[in-house]
């Protein structure tokens, strides 16, 4: 083991010439690397499992609890919204996943290897956004439709139900799936800014769990802009059951803005601070 069968190389003095500069490691290579990282970690797989099980379990409980009530109880009842209840839990778990993708690297020193492989930090962050965004979009859509179908199946045992063909239902289900991806990106942005797992998860929990409660005590008007309230009352609803819920369009724009702010700040910090 004392001799090394590595191919002998001519020292690369000044080898960064025109030929190699035209063709260099970029987003494609970095995304492939990020994908391998993403699928090769048990913690990521566990978080995805928690997301799925949590979502489907809560949906079951929420829809089961809506069965066999007197007819008056179903005044303004939104079977679609009811069957998407579990996604609130899913959005928390998948946000934690977004946090872990980046804080897990800082916590273990992997970030140094990542930046050594791709020193252009904007490219690295873009690759992470693409891989996390696209994979959680797929997971989110699958979960959202599963949750809807599960919920309707339970509700058919003794409550009003909805079908995807009814007005606004397909929109609510599809957009809810996409919102899970946005929560993951929000977590990714916060993780990039904060770098520490515990701190970033605490802030994420503050934004998602505490913000609605705290803001509500200040003003209902402001509280409806909290991410989870946009999700539950605007995006996942087919009838505007809460008069103070923001419109779907405004809700989506707000959520996109939150993600852009977190990721933008993350990009700024990633560029400015030492790794």
């Amino acid at each position, binding site marked *: *083991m*004392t*001799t*090394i*069968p*590595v*191919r*002998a*190389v*001519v*020292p*690369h*003095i*000044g*080898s*960064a010439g025109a030929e*190699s*500069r035209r*063709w*260099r*490691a970029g987003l494609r*290579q*970095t995304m*492939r*690397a*990020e994908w*391998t*990282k993403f699928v*090769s*970690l*048990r*913690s990521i797989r566990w978080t995805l499992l928690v997301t799925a099980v949590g979502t489907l379990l809560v949906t079951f409980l929420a829809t089961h609890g809506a069965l066999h009530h007197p007819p008056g109880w179903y005044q303004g009842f939104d079977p679609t919204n009811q069957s998407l209840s579990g996604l609130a839990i899913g959005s928390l778990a998948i946000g934690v996943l977004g946090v872990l993708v980046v804080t*897990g*690297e800082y916590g*273990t*020193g*992997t970030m*140094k*290897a*990542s*930046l*050594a*492989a*791709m*020193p*252009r930090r904007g490219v690295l962050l873009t690759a992470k956004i693409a891989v996390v965004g696209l994979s959680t979009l797929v997971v989110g859509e699958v979960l959202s439709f599963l949750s809807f179908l599960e919920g309707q199946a339970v509700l058919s045992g003794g409550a009003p139900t909805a079908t995807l063909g009814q007005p606004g239902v397909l929109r609510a289900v599809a957009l809810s799936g996409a919102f899970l991806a946005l929560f993951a990106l929000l977590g990714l942005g916060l993780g990039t800014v904060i770098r520490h797992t515990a701190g970033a998860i605490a802030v994420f929990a503050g934004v998602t769990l505490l913000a609605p409660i705290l803001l509500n005590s200040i003003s209902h008007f402001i509280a409806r802009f909290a991410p989870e309230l946009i999700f539950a009352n605007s995006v996942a609803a087919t009838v505007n059951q809460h008069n103070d819920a923001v419109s779907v369009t405004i809700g989506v724009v707000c959520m996109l803005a939150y993600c852009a702010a977190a990721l933008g700040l993350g990009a700024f910090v990633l560029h400015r601070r*030492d*790794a």
Partner: protein
Amino acid sequence: MIVTHGLTKRYGKTLAVDALSFTVPPGVVTGFLGPNGSGKSTTMRMVLGLDRPDGGSALVNGCPYAELSWPLREVGALLDAKAFHPGRSARNHLRWLAQANDIPLARVDTVLDLVGLTAVADRRAGKFSLGMGQRLGIASALLGDPGVLLFDEPVNGLDPEGIRWVRHLLRDLAAEGRTVLVSSHLINEMALTADRLVVIGRGTLIAETTVDDFVASHRSDAVRVVTPTPQRFVAALSRAGARPSVHDDGAIVVSGLSSADIGELAAGQELTVHELTPLHASLEDVFMELTSSSVEYRSHAPDQAAAPDALPAR
């Protein structure tokens, strides 16, 4: 080839690296030597573009690291013993690194075999010992078959067999024409591995030289004399123009005369000599002396009494 020019890094008020300029040529092992906290790791991090310098530049093959087309194919680095996720297997760690720079995946098996981790390649790296972690770090550095290699304290946590292996590996890599920079705070380890030395203390350059020149230029020859009549001997030595000093154990350490001269002197004056030993400064002594003023963290142990074989205090 690595060239730094006026490299400077400040952490708050502390100047971690202070206008550091040195060159690491290909084909030899260059030891990067300094006490703990002298700025070795910070310098290496700046070479890799992980830390932004407050001044100066670090170029790899004439290029800032961030502008390298395929960084892992040009530069391999071992910075931390555990710069990998403990939940990922060694093979998957190397796989993503390979994909990031379009390195053929066959190289993963090659380097795993090279560092002797093939048998545990699919186990979670978090279960690895420190030494196995070092081997994985070395595998990562060699993955892209790079012409420039940086190793920060590579023998940390390795057993004697592993230390020997790393020593040979570094020398072989250099013999293939690669640029090899290896940091250490252990001068004796460097004496066995390196051809050239870059010595720093408190972030400034103390010496940039070959190991042989480093020892030769700092060798101060002294002779230890044990005699039953120290007073007469000291007087005779002083008359002869030497600089004797009497140590606690009664031995006289003489500088300014060779052992042959002292022998002749003793014979001429009929002085009894029980012991006449030429002393050579060890590499460690030279290193300690050079960096003594620049040690950041010093333990306040009771005054170390001069060991019998130590040089006289200046």
